[in-house]
């Protein structure tokens, strides 16, 4: 692994050079908070921004994504035959992604890229994307990422990890993709590897000290699904829930989607939208029957999926990276850290 230093004076120029080959995404601020968005030529990433309200998952998995189209015009040879839409798979780079969000992308990959099926929309976007992370020097009070297998300077899922050293960035190039990106920016000032790594270690330790929230997940895999499912605490957990989709939409690891068809004139479009297990419609059968009819069942599904089903199915820990977005955004303050603790400590009777 090699390290480079990037003088902050050169940062904007490097980004501009990379725009020739990359579509650049990064955090930008508007009146409603900070978001990861495509950066138009006049925009530069706000590297010292706080946590974005929404996670960067939409870079690979847009909230609404066209999948297939067909013509309904019977005079056309190929009428009613659905074909994939043309996609823009030019290279893209996400700047300033937080390390836990990069881990989240690997967790989502387990769903979209598996031995049986590969989702071409997600997989192609993933292949085209370079993730340039920035270590989090001052994690906020909702951050519990050290409990979830990552942390403020985790490298997993990243192509480059940078550290903010006031007047410069120190960047650790982790993959070939990362190297290509650095090349495209013209960042080539090598830094001493041993010294740089030592610096990273110090920064990581400092940052980890600032994380005060933690959860225990060690007992989850030992529990029985049915015991947790039937446990008495779900009514209390779910009481305040208003069943909006906020937690699922802000979550970097929630991948569920809905498929919808629409037509305009003679064109049919099939597209997908993020969906939420909080919505009764998510599981509503056409017959009217709904296996998760009540709010409590839906709240239980969300936490069971993240903290138990996923754990059992993939053996990769919990389906949560500890970003704290759902904790911060939930209108009724349902806190996954508390629920995780209750589940982890649950003893069946």
């Amino acid at each position, binding site marked *: 692994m090699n390290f480079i230093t990037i003088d902050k004076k050169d940062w904007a120029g490097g980004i501009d050079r990379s725009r020739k080959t990359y579509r650049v995404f990064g955090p930008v601020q508007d009146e409603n908070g900070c978001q990861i968005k495509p950066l138009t030529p006049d925009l530069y990433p706000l590297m010292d921004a706080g946590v974005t309200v929404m996670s960067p998952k939409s870079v690979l998995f847009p909230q*609404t994504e*066209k999948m297939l189209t067909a013509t309904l015009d019977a005079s056309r040879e190929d009428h009613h035959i659905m074909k994939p839409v043309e996609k823009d798979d030019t290279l893209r780079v996400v700047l300033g992604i937080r390390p836990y969000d990069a881990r989240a992308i690997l967790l989502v990959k387990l769903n979209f890229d598996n031995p049986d099926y590969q989702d071409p929309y997600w997989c192609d976007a993933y292949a085209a994307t370079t993730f340039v992370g920035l270590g989090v020097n001052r994690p906020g009070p909702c951050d519990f990422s050290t409990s979830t297998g990552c942390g403020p300077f985790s490298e997993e899922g990243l192509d480059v990890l940078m550290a903010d050293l006031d007047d410069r960035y120190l960047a650790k190039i982790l993959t070939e993709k990362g190297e290509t990106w650095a090349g495209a920016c013209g960042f080539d000032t090598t830094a001493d590897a041993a010294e740089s790594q030592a610096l990273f270690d110090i920064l990581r330790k400092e940052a980890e000290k600032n994380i005060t929230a933690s959860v225990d997940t060690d007992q989850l895999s030992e529990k029985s699904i049915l015991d947790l499912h039937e446990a008495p605490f779900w009514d209390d957990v779910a009481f305040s829930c208003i069943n909006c989709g906020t937690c699922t939409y802000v979550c970097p690891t929630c991948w569920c989607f809905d498929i919808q068809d*629409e*037509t*305009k*004139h003679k*064109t049919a*479009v099939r*597209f997908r939208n993020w969906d939420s297990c909080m919505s009764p419609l998510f599981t509503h059968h056409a017959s009217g029957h709904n296996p998760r009819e009540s709010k409590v069942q839906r709240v239980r599904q969300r936490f069971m999926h993240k903290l138990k089903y996923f754990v059992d199915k993939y053996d990769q820990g919990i389906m949560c990276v500890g970003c704290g977005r759902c904790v911060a955004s939930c209108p009724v303050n349902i806190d996954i850290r508390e629920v995780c603790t209750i589940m982890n400590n649950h003893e069946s009777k």
Partner: protein
Amino acid sequence: MMGNLLEHVGVERDRLHFSWISSAEATKFVDVVKEISDKVRALDTDKKFAKEYTK
């Protein structure tokens, strides 16, 4: 109130019309439909509620 709200969000007031027309008032119906069509035509095609995805 519906009309006021539409107008408030910037939709042209003339796109919404209310009339009492009895089933016996055929000529009034024709007049009203004519009036509405003319007004809406004068406003040109609505672009505010035209979808983009299916382009």
